C-alpha cells in the first residue's frame, strides 16, 4: 500500500545529544526512513544544533559517539540538512563549527519550509 507513495518527511531535532537519548534515537528513525525512499529533511534548531558540533569526544562519559553518523547520511541519500541561524548564534556557534555540510536558514524560512511538509516528527 505504501509502495510508490513519496511523502515529505521532516525530522525536527531540538535537543542536545547525550543529556537525553532523543538525538540518538531520532537518528535511528532517520536511517530507517532512508529504506522507504521518502523525501527526507532534517532540521536542527534550538539545542539540536549541538548534535552537529565538531570534535565530540564521548570516551569519558562512556557513551557511544554517534556524531560521525551525520556525515554518513549522504550515503543514504539523506542530503537535506537545515540548521537554524538564530539557534547557532545564540549558542556561540557558526557553520564552521559543524561536522557536516548544511543549509543555514533564518527562523522564518524554517517556518515556511515546515509548511511544505507532509509529516513532521519531533524528537
Amino acid at each position, binding site marked *: 500500500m505504501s509502495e510508490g507513495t513519496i511523502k515529505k518527511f521532516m525530522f*525536527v531535532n*531540538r535537543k542536545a545529544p547525550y543529556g537525553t537519548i532523543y538525538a540518538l534515537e531520532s537518528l535511528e528513525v532517520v536511517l530507517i526512513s532512508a529504506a522507504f525512499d521518502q523525501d527526507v529533511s532534517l532540521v536542527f534548531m*534550538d539545542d539540536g544544533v549541538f548534535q552537529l558540533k565538531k570534535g565530540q569526544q564521548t570516551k569519558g562519559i562512556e557513551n557511544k559517539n554517534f556524531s560521525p553518523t551525520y556525515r554518513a547520511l549522504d550515503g543514504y541519500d539523506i542530503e537535506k540538512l537545515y540548521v537554524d541561524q538564530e539557534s547557532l548564534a545564540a549558542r556561540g556557534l557558526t557553520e564552521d563549527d559543524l561536522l557536516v555540510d548544511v543549509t543555514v536558514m533564518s527562523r*522564518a524560512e524554517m*517556518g*515556511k519550509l*515546515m*509548511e511544505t511538509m507532509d509529516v*513532521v516528527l519531533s524528537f
Partner: protein
Amino acid sequence: MLHIVNKSPLERNALDSCLSAAQGGALLLTEDAVYAATRGNAAAGKITAAMAGMKVYVLGPDLDARGMTDRLLEGVTSVDYGGFVDLVAEYPTNQSWL
C-alpha cells in the same frame, strides 16, 4: 499548519521557538503549555500578539485540571479532545514542539 505546544513557557523555550517559526495557521496549547494562555502569566503577551496572525486554542481539560479555567485569556478558544482531533484533521500538517 497546526502547531502543538505542551511545555510551560516559563520552563522551556518550545513556545518561543514555535511562535518565531510559525507562519500563521493554528496553535494548540496542551498539558503544561495551557499556563501560557492565562491572565497574568508572563507569556500572556506573546499569546495575545500571536493571535493577530494565528488562531489560538487550549485543551480545556488541561486547563480545568490545573485550576486555571477562569483565567483563560480572552480570544483563546477552549476545545476538548474531540476538538483536538478536529484541529488535526483540519490542518494538513501538524507539528508537536516537544
